[in-house]
């Protein structure tokens, strides 16, 4: 098996050419029907250069990914900036860019909550409070931490559920990207799925996490530079923020689309049909903290940091940039409300009537403002978003599968090179399963509904287990396992209940006026509470671990390395406070 992989690695440059040739053909031989715009040859060259560069980086970094530590954790040598930008880029998938721009058109500025209260406090908490636990115990993964804290059964449950969630999420990412390419460029959906996925597979198989991180930083820069033109030109066209809000109020008088908090006092006062308690407790606490502190897709990037200070600083840097992402994602959606002459509709209505759907708002805005060259850059930014999201998923999948399932349950003692080889095969397997999942996702009408459901199934309960494990010494291995299992099953149960009986939504979200997004937030909150309640109850009924076995795993059982005489401006806590203050000010400004 290893020899086969080595042979494949030698053929990598040819594989790269094989991937790029169909792309080259597709760029010049585009079908003309049913697409938003045609590409100029300059746009084609820009897209092609991007594909060649990401593949070239994978080929170049192949020689640097020899050991397990190199392949799965990038040698733990990343600086705070690289780890921080990669941490954020892994989250900026095509779904994130397209989906939340669409949500901004649909729900207005309320979509910003997923970037601010739904991210910033959790990211700062990860950097300042939780990172020392992960970093000091030198775990390879979040399930690896659960093994140290709660034992093998909790690790196996978390690893398997994470593996399932990761490939399902990756499939969503692939599908949403292929959908964009079909709508925007008229590409065949199968062609988009396979070419883009194989490109990611090639560079992650070759360079592992190192290659994924390298490309994620590149993609992060491209996403910003490609997407920033739209809000700048949009604000010029509308005469600034004030002009934009006035146009939106004139065109859509039924709801307030431009205030963050003032409409959340009642479920029926805002276009999302949600109450502030759902946003604060469901999104801001459970789902956000669950995702940013326990989803290994993002935590893996921070674990690659070269020292504890870098590991604590990386999420703070990520949080600072995350606060600015609404400028390139939410603002184009709002500008779409203000300037687009046609009214966008839901996906099913768009299919029935031939109108443009919410999901097309970002491509429509690109087409509105960008000429040749800039358009290619914008399309490349969307592709970069897809690739960074998918690479994040498959590299995390390969690590968890290899260390927490294969090494823990199948082959405990093997050479390091063997696990690297298994990791490479897992990457290929992960990509293939993701492609299969992409075809499965096509059957779902609402992609965002599917994604939010996955988060509440697997991430919300995991956060309860990890939080109690880190901060409560009395939590026992049995408590951790049964709490996690109960939280996951209860979440799936609530979701199924609403699918069978839609009236159940009013019980879960506490209001007959609640809409599907509110259901997701409250379901996350309830399953987290169930996880915590079961963990606490079972822990009191079972024997705790001896204190000596908890050293370095629970708050108060380890001593952080001193930051010595570092000046204030180099301390993670200082920058976390700065980011926290800006976060509060922004919420007040857009209240």
């Amino acid at each position, binding site marked *: 098996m290893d020899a086969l992989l080595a042979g494949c690695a030698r053929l990598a440059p040819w594989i790269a050419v094989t991937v790029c040739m169909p792309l080259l053909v597709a760029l010049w031989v585009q079908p003309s029907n049913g697409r938003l715009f045609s590409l*100029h040859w*300059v746009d084609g*060259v*820009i897209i092609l*250069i*991007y594909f060649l*560069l990401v593949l070239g*980086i994978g080929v*170049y970094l192949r020689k*640097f*990914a*020899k*050991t397990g*530590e*190199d392949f799965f954790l990038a*040698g*733990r*040598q*990343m*600086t*705070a*900036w*690289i780890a921080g930008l990669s941490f954020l880029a892994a989250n900026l998938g095509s779904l994130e860019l397209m989906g939340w721009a669409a949500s901004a058109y649909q729900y207005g500025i309320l979509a910003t909550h997923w970037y601010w209260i739904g991210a910033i406090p959790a990211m700062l908490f990860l950097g300042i409070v939780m990172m020392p636990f992960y*970093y*000091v115990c030198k775990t390879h993964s979040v399930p690896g931490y659960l093994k140290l804290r709660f034992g093998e059964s909790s690790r196996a449950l978390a690893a398997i559920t994470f593996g399932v969630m990761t490939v399902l999420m990756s499939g969503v990412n692939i599908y949403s990207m292929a959908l964009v390419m079909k709508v925007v460029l008229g590409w065949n959906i199968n062609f988009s799925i396979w070419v883009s996925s194989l490109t990611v597979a090639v560079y992650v198989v070759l360079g592992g996490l190192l290659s994924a*991180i*390298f490309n994620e*930083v*590149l993609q992060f*820069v*491209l996403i910003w*530079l490609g997407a920033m*033109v739209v809000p700048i*030109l949009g604000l*010029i*066209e509308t005469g600034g923020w004030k002009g934009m809000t006035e146009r939106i109020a004139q065109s859509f008088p039924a709801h307030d689309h431009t205030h963050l908090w003032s409409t959340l006092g009642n479920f029926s006062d805002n276009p999302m049909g949600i109450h502030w308690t759902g946003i604060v407790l469901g999104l801001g606490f459970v789902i956000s903290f669950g995702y940013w502190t326990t989803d290994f897709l993002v935590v893996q990037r921070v674990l690659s940091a*070269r*020292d*504890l*200070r*870098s*590991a604590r600083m990386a999420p703070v840097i990520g949080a600072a940039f995350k606060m600015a992402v609404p400028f390139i994602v939410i603002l184009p959606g709002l500008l779409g409300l203000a*300037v687009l002459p046609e009214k966008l509709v839901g996906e099913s209505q768009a299919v029935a009537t031939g109108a443009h759907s919410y999901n097309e708002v970002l491509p429509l805005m690109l*087409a*509105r*403002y*960008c*000429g*040749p*060259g*800039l358009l*290619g*850059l914008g399309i490349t930014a969307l592709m970069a978003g897809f690739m960074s999201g998918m690479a994040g998923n498959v590299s995390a999948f390969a690590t968890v599968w290899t260390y927490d399932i294969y090494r823990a349950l199948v082959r405990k003692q093997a050479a390091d090179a063997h696990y690297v080889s298994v990791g490479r095969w897992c990457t290929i397997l992960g990509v293939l399963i993701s492609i299969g999942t992409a075809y499965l996702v096509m059957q779902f009408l609402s992609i965002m509904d599917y994604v939010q459901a996955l988060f509440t199934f697997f991430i919300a309960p995991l956060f309860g287990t990890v939080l109690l494990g880190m901060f409560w010494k009395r939590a026992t291995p049995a408590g951790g396992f049964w709490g996690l299992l109960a939280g996951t099953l209860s979440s799936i149960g609530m979701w199924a209940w609403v699918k069978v009986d839609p009236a159940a939504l009013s019980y879960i979200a506490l209001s007959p006026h609640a809409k599907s997004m509110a259901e997701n937030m409250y379901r996350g909150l309830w399953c987290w509470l169930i996880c915590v309640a079961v963990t606490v109850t079972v822990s009191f009924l079972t024997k705790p671990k001896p204190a000596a076995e908890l050293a370095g795993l629970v708050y108060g059982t380890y001593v952080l*390395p*001193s*930051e*010595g*005489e*570092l000046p204030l401006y*180099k301390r993670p806590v200082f920058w976390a406070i700065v980011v926290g203050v800006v976060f509060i000010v922004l919420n007040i400004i857009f209240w």
Partner: protein
Amino acid sequence: MYSETSRISIWFFIGALLLVYGLLITGAGIYDLVVPPSQQPVLSQLHAGIWWGGLLVLLGCIYCYRFFPGKGHDTASHESQSSGTGASGGRAKGL
């Protein structure tokens, strides 16, 4: 562990890409200025391609110069001066 001495900084790759993209986008913008296309985007009179492409060229030049391979001026060495102490401070260079 791998040797860090010969690895090219990611910032150099980014600089090179921005430089090439900047030249292409500026060139396309100038061509559109000279030969206006039949279908023009909104605010085409601002010639966004020219100034945005120019910005990319500028950024690309700065990054290429700052992180040119073999210059010994990569992010790691820059940050290692400021990282101070850490759990494993003083390890090999990063990206």
